[in-house]
């Protein structure tokens, strides 16, 4: 079998091939600019670039994202868009990160994973019938991440099983990872009940009420399309006009909320609730100039899944 590992960086590649002896023969290829990679890779990086894409005989078989950051607070959605793209294409996807670790700095403290991410991953798995796994990078009792080989042990076991099965996405190791992921979510919700509910930046209301509150006339054709769904999820994003030319972490977070509270099918339009991104501090003209829906720019990620954007002085319907 011919294995190729597309990575941004030689360091990432040198880590990846130590995860299993059968990966040692993989050829290192850099992920290039869009349009310069094989079509299967180009298609995978349209939202953003993952750390590792393993290709077997010309077909991607796993995507891995690795980070030392605990997805918590404001940053929970960071890196999620690239993972969503991978499961949309039916490629098993792994995010390797610490569930609990110490944050350093003046106010050093333990950070714990926002457990909603685990449920979002489970929903992505269900909807796309493709493994979407969170794998823990363990830490010691002081919250410092493991730095030796033991850090990768769980990931190694997962990959070993997958490779041994001939890259079967339904292999027993992945099935077990799914069970563990759901159990982890439940256990964390028991400890911190708030993770069983939507976060403060989000509200779920009747669509008619939402339109009224946001000052949208309900008799327009687009408003009537929104009204076809009884409920809407409003994700309020408090960016200012001066600082609105950005994507992270919001465009990843929109996917988390989409899969948690809206999505019921693989296409962005498959929703049982509308997903409305609400920008109360930004005028529509300013938004459009700074974040155009231009496929050559990452700002196009703002338009991937929302039903509508509502600005301070107007709104746009998408789906």
């Amino acid at each position, binding site marked *: 079998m011919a294995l190729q590992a597309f*990575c*941004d*960086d*030689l*360091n*990432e590649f*040198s*880590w990846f091939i130590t995860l299993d002896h059968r990966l040692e023969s993989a050829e290192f290829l850099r992920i290039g600019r869009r349009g310069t990679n094989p079509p299967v890779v180009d298609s995978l990086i349209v939202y953003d670039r993952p*750390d590792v894409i393993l290709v077997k005989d010309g077909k991607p078989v796993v995507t891995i994202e*690795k*980070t*030392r950051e605990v997805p918590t607070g404001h940053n929970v959605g960071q890196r999620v868009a690239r993972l969503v793209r991978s499961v949309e294409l039916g490629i098993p996807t792994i995010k390797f990160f610490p569930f609990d670790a110490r944050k*350093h*700095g*003046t106010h*050093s403290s333990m950070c714990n994973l926002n457990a909603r991410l685990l449920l979002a991953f489970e929903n992505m798995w269900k909807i796309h019938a493709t493994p979407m796994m969170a794998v823990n990078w363990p830490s*010691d009792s*002081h919250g*410092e*991440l493991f*730095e*030796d080989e033991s*850090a990768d042990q769980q990931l190694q076991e997962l990959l070993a099983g997958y490779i041994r099965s001939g890259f079967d996405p339904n292999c027993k190791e992945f099935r077990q990872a799914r069970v563990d992921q759901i159990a982890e979510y439940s256990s964390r919700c028991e400890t911190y009940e708030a993770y069983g509910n939507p976060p403060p930046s989000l509200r779920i209301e009747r669509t008619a009420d939402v339109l009224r509150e946001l000052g949208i006339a309900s008799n327009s054709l687009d408003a009537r399309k929104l009204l076809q769904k009884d409920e809407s999820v409003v994700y309020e994003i408090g960016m200012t006009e001066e600082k609105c030319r950005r994507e992270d972490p919001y465009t990843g977070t929109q996917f988390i909320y989409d899969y948690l509270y809206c999505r019921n099918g693989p296409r962005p339009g498959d929703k049982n609730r509308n997903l409305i991104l609400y920008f109360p501090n930004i005028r529509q003209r300013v938004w459009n100039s700074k974040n155009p829906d231009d496929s050559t720019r990452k700002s196009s990620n703002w338009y991937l899944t929302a039903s509508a954007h509502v600005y301070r002085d107007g709104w746009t319907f998408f789906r």
Partner: protein
Amino acid sequence: MREDEIYLLTKQWVVNQELHVLGGQPPNGTDRFPVIEIKSDEHSEKGSRTSYKPDLIVATSDHLLIIECKPLFNFEDVSKLKEIAESLPRLEAFIGELRQRRSLERRNHSLSQLSDRELISRTRFCVAYSGEHHPVPNMYSLVFSPDGSKYSLYFGDSIAENVSN
């Protein structure tokens, strides 16, 4: 050579010398060890634009070594390291970061027994690159051949000690 290649060669050199990597930041992506941020004198907040994240931080038997990696000799790296070396608050911030992470203690490294002041006095600096050697006073230079197969470690004028585990 590219920056990630020099980074990897340098890391390999560190491993071959049986030294301990305490922290650092690869040019892209993530490594096993922590990113250590040395904040500037004026800006103590995390993520400040003027804070500095060394490529590699290494403990030898007697010293701490801050290493910057670049494909070719880069004078900006020298200036950056010099700025840290000449700033007591930044050196204190550096040692403070290591203490907070228990970087030496967790390895049972003998340097962990030293006072902060002593650790500051034992902090050394190194630039790693490929190509021709450019002598830099007060710093080590780790210079790789263009194909990466050979290296030479040069001592700056005022450095007497070798790097050892």
